[in-house]
């Protein structure tokens, strides 16, 4: 951990109003300023890595809203994540982490295989029965929550279905690589299909290498830096085999991680080059809004947009998705209050810290209700999972869509 990064915090408190957990608790220990101070005091030897200290730090969502608010460029979320990762790394991977992070996540086939029983569980009606009987109540709370988050799974993951090369529709403008996020492929495959269709319709040849692996974000979370670097090297090699204008993703979380490959592999020019080519889908579509606009058919809906942390705070993308939505004729756009405040999903946070996650989710839902929107649009699978469930439970009249699903529908591509 770089000590200067810690002392760069001048404790001005500008981050406090942006922090979802501070807004809920008003506690300095639950604020970015407080977290930086705690980590700093550990580094300085004034505090031990006590259970309580780790508990305080674990309340951080790593949403990085604080980084957007910080005048001095301190990223408290990232600092806490780094601290936690380094600590976990020094302890070594546990049995479960080893199993999941090293043997499952980096191997798309195994990952997809692991979903088969779930799909069967849903398809055979077992899910309905289990839910009805409340059998899950007998299992650990975490399992029940995980089960509840899952929407109906597509028959097959997109990775297995999509062609490696999707030709440009009409005159070819260029070639892009498509980075298919694990969750997008496994759960929100329709949205990623829409993404590919939009890219192709705008004249891009879209290459989706089948051998690509998970971006490595789960490894970072689990304290497995080596695994993350391994994933980065694999993906860099795979995409280096093509001549690409951009590497596009429609998963905010993947995008944020992919853009940091250069940072993870310092001194590696290929990693630097890879990171520089990564774009969120909204960035690419917004480049061609002039071409896109005339193809859009009216969508008579009131729509609002939730900024995923990984898109707004980690990548600084806020303008493009809104501009794209405003292109759609007939669509009424209503800005969401606290649009760039976390929804409480935050990786595995909604499983690990259900209480705080729910409080943050409910604040988000109240803002969505106040916007009067019929459709909530967003751009990250974590948010899609969390908010889909939240809306179904509390605001069933509001639908949720990925940005590209809505645009593809308006463009007659879905």
């Amino acid at each position, binding site marked *: 951990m770089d000590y*200067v990064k810690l*002392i*760069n915090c*001048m*404790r*001005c*408190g*500008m981050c*406090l*109003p942006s922090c979802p957990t501070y807004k809920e608790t*008003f*506690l*300095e*220990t639950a*604020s970015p*300023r*407080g977290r930086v*101070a*705690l980590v700093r*005091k550990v580094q300085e030897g*004034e*505090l031990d890595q*006590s259970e*309580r*200290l780790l508990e*305080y730090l674990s309340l951080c969502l790593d949403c990085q809203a604080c980084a957007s608010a910080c*005048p*001095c*460029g301190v990223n408290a979320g990232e600092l806490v994540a780094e601290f936690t990762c380094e600590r976990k790394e020094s302890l070594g991977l546990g049995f479960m982490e080893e199993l999941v992070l090293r043997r499952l996540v980096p191997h798309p086939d195994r990952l997809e295989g692991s979903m088969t029983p779930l799909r069967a569980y849903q398809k055979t009606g077992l899910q309905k029965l289990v839910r009805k009987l409340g059998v899950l109540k007998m299992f650990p709370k975490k399992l029940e929550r995980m089960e509840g988050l899952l929407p109906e799974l597509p028959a097959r993951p997109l990775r297995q279905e999509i062609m490696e090369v999707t030709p440009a529709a009409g005159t070819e403008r260029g070639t892009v690589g498509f980075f298919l996020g694990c969750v997008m492929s496994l759960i929100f495959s329709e949205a990623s299909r829409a993404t590919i269709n939009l890219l192709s319709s705008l004249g891009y040849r879209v290459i989706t290498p089948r051998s690509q692996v998970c971006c490595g974000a789960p490894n970072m979370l689990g304290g497995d830096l080596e695994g993350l670097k391994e994933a980065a090297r694999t993906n860099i090699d795979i995409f280096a085999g093509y001549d690409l204008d951009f590497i596009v993703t429609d998963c905010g979380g993947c995008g944020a991680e992919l853009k940091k490959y250069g940072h993870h592999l310092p001194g590696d020019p290929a990693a630097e080059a890879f990171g520089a080519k990564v774009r969120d889908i909204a960035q690419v579509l917004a480049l061609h809004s002039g071409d896109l606009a005339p193809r859009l058919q009216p969508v008579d809906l009131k729509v609002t947009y939730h900024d995923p942390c990984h898109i707004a705070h980690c990548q600084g993308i806020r303008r493009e998705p809104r501009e794209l939505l405003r292109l759609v004729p007939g669509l009424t756009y209503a800005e969401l209050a606290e649009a760039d405040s976390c929804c409480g999903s935050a990786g595995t946070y909604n499983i690990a810290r259900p209480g705080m996650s729910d409080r943050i989710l409910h604040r988000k839902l109240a803002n969505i209700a106040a916007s009067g929107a019929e459709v909530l649009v967003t751009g990250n699978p974590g948010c899609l999972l969390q908010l889909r469930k939240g809306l179904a439970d509390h605001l069933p009249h509001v639908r949720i869509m990925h940005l590209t699903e809505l645009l593809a529908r308006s463009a007659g591509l879905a």
Partner: protein
Amino acid sequence: MQQSFINELRNIVGEQYTLADRESLAVYGYDSTPELESLPGAVVLPGSGEEVARIMALCHGAGVSVTPRGSGTNLSGGSLSVNSGVVVQTSRLNRIVEIDEENLTATVEPGVITSALHREVESRGLFYPPDPGSMNISTMGGNVAENSGGLRGLKYGVTADYVMGLETVLADGTVLRSGGKVVKDVAGYSLNPLLVSSEGTLGFFTGITVKLIPRPRSKVTMLAHFPALQDAALAVSAIIAAKVIPATLEILDRVTIRCVEEYAHVGLPLDVDAVLLIEVDGHPAVTAEEALAVEEICKRYRSSFFQTAATADEALKLATARRTALSALARLKPTTILEDATVPRSCIAPMLQVIQAAAAKHNVTIGTFGHAGDGNLHPTCLTDERDQDEIKRAHAAFEEIFDAAIAMGGTITGEHGVGIAKKKYLPRLVGESGIRVMRGIKNAFDPKGILNPGKVF
């Protein structure tokens, strides 16, 4: 702190809102003041004014000190407990109690965030002008206790100009009500002005009633570059002399301009000595006329570039340079010492020269920006707390700056308060008699000395 005492605090505010673990105490040992740290014995977050009164009575009985804390953004060490006492954080007291549109007042609890009040009153066509740079997080209680100013101070004044009524818990836990919704009130001593800027040393505010005014209907934003500092200062004086009182009249000096340009690339030239950001507001007919007058004056004083924003977006762009000043400076070095020496506005140019000379003499980097219109400057020293020699030189430079401010008929602090940080300088400004009178007032309010000890003097 004794467990039995902590238990008594717990009985008042509840388990969840009583903090005494090492980790919590560690993060209530600082506020936004550089270099200062001092751990409290306990921290409580009361949920009502009544709980505040009970905490105060308890501490009074036990002889334990109480330090009020809003968001801990003050720049003078005011919210730190110097003798392991109880820090009382007001964040839960965050209700806007009433907006009275007939009497044009707002009554709030002390933990209300300044910009939350702005949003609420502006949605009703009303206006609460004080807008400290920290308004998105500072609390109303903190603003009153520090008499905070802001960018609109020149035309609209500071927090003190808006405080009409206060509900204050005194050191022994009894409650004092001063002022109210009346515009005129000469019954007895005026207590509000005493309590405003008392930095938590005279009483604990639990209710605050402020004056509101109608929201100005229009605003014109302008930006002017000046190759010579002297010309910028002359333009400032000439604008006021022309009987135009801009809402905002802000200046950036050469060091700040360079930093802003490097960081935000807003198109500032690197060869000018000063940039002025000027905003006039009010009736559209008046603002249009005033904007023309401002333009004419800036050009007369050899402004090399002048721009009037045509749209709200453009206005935001012009204001970017000023808004990013602190960020741009703060990024350069780990430690940022932000001061607020204030002089009569006619002394802006000599004061800027004093600052530049002091920085050069002591070999430190100081960028200055601030409220040129009201003489309140923010010389900001960029340093590194690990370099003790440089820190020493920075303080030596500031000592010269403060002495110069006093000599020009100014003050050592225009809005950040004395707290711990400027104790040393207060006697130089107010003299022995000033300190004696202030001590007398402190004694009258708090004979046991339990309210925020160690501050001001």
